[in-house]
């Protein structure tokens, strides 16, 4: 009888999953497949009907076209910009977050006001990225603006020959890239820190006690115990930050419209420009770029999971599998 009942209930598992599955198929899976198809066609122009779209005679034509181009406004430059701006934000971000984590979780130096610091460090993350981008643009504005006035007062303090001229910061490629990286860093280090701290708090305190008894100093404890123990959280941070970084859009798009000279055009901005700002509405090129990004993200994520996989756990899983098999044989 009990068995009959559980069979009866099983169908609710399917029924309750139906809304998710339908919404997923319609709003996510179909668009993904559709994007892939468009990437191999000649679909251009806002009003072109889907029925007028044709597969290219050279199926990879769009991919070759966008990978061939170089210089301002090319996909290759966009990919380079994305990677460089992500690295310049992620490396300092993870280092600062680790440092703050080490400080905040150390029992020996009890830091007061931790709660307040956490709340303040996390604050920029909650604010609309679009507003943050425009705010920084206002700070950097030329010929008059907050940063220019700081620059002027510094220059007139140090050199007597300063003529009071101002500087257009957003015309400087390296500087603008740096600003994008800084904003990303500023918005996300608090988030990363909170994640890492929760990881450290989750570690069994007995491990730290044992280390202390064995005479490990702070540095040893941190590098030999804390970091290996929060490996999965680190992986999570790395993967989510990487995916977020490879999709960076709001800040570079609004800070300086991907400029100067396309130097802050990320791949997401590139896709947006090709599809919606290019007078030819090149959906096919944009779709091809999307597919390339999709593949890059997938490969990197899988590689990361593989590199950082828990080898002990894997062994354990294998053992369990063997045990289960043995049990089955006995039955």
């Amino acid at each position, binding site marked *: 009888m009990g068995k009959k009942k559980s069979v009866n209930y099983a169908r609710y598992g399917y029924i309750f999953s139906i809304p998710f599955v339908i919404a997923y198929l319609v709003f996510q899976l179909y668009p993904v497949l559709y994007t892939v198809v468009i990437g191999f066609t000649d679909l251009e122009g806002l009003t072109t009907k889907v029925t007028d779209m044709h597969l290219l005679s050279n199926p990879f034509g769009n991919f070759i076209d966008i990978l061939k181009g170089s210089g301002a406004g090319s996909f290759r430059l966009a990919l380079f910009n994305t990677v460089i701006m992500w690295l310049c934000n992620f490396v300092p971000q993870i280092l600062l977050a680790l440092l703050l984590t080490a400080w905040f979780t150390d029992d020996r130096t009890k830091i007061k006001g931790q709660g307040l610091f956490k709340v303040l460090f*996390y604050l920029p993350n909650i604010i609309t990225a679009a507003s943050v981008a*425009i705010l920084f643009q206002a700070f950097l504005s030329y010929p008059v603006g907050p940063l220019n006035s700081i620059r002027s007062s510094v220059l007139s303090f140090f050199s007597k020959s300063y003529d009071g001229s101002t500087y257009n910061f957003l015309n400087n490629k390296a500087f603008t890239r740096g600003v994008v990286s800084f904003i990303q860093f500023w918005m996300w280090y608090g988030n990363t820190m909170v994640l890492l701290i929760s990881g450290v708090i989750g570690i069994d305190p007995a491990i730290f006690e044992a280390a202390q008894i064995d005479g490990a100093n702070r540095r040893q404890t941190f590098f030999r115990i804390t970091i290996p123990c929060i490996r999965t959280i680190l992986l999570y941070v790395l*993967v989510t930050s990487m995916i977020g970084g490879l999709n960076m859009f709001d800040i570079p798009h609004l800070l300086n419209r991907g400029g100067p000279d396309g130097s802050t055009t990320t791949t997401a901005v590139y896709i947006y420009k090709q599809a919606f700002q290019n007078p030819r509405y090149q959906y096919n090129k944009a779709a091809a770029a999307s597919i390339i990004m999709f593949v890059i993200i997938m490969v990197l994520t899988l590689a990361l999971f593989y590199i950082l996989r828990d080898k002990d756990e894997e062994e354990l899983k294998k053992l369990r599998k063997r045990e289960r098999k043995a049990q089955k044989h006995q039955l």
Partner: protein
Amino acid sequence: MSSQPQSLSKSKDSLVIKIIVYVVCIVLAVVSIMPFWVMLVNATRSSVQIKEHPISLIPSKYLFSNKEVFDDKPSFQPVTGFINSAIISVGATVCALYFSSLTAYALTAYEWKLRDSFFKFIMAVMMIPAQCTMIGFFKMVYSLHLTNNLLTLILPAVAAPSMVFFMRQYLQSSLSMEIVQSARIDGAGEFRTFNSIVLPIMKPALATQAIFAFVGNWNELFRPLVILTEGSKKTMPIMVSLLNGDIYRVEYGAIYLGLTITVLPLIVVYIFLSKYIVSGVSLGAVK
């Protein structure tokens, strides 16, 4: 004998470390607040004042004359943006919460054949970023004449893989099947059991996820920018993006006021919910 000077130097060391820690933390805190403070203050200053001294920490009295700029040049419409953003964020958050919980319940409470493969599928697609699917999504929506329709941004929230993953984790640790069984004995249907017994159990998880889903939807720029092109349908982040247009070029005070209008509600909400937000950040992380 020899241990005393050693411990002294140790405590001196830790004092130095402590000072460094506090200095760094205070500097970082100031860096977090300063941009918003300058923004708030400049929103109350006239464009002439800002032109002369772009940075000031003391508010002035031109808040309302800055506001008038938007009456004269009305491409930035905060009220419209606010209403649209509110409709999308509330709608999408409710859809995501309800249907993710329902799916998570299906994954936890019932034994069905495809359950494990379904869950593996959800894990696999959790990481697919929306921007990789945008072209297909737009083309589909465009040919169905559903651009400039707020529902286009609300309904996709029904399928939120990462929220399903989170809700499943939560249910596994907090749902006891005995409660479900006793509801069944009392004659409640499965759907009713979910609505009146399981959902209340999930309240803490729903609250955290609600905050993050709402903020995420509120702040999103990319999808609304592509889907909503009519002025009357624009959301807050799109309205903000209009502030860097040429018509506000020299209206420094108005730009800061516009930014303040978009940022201040978030800061106020954050002041009240910061405790839940900061402690909720880590809940979504894979353990």
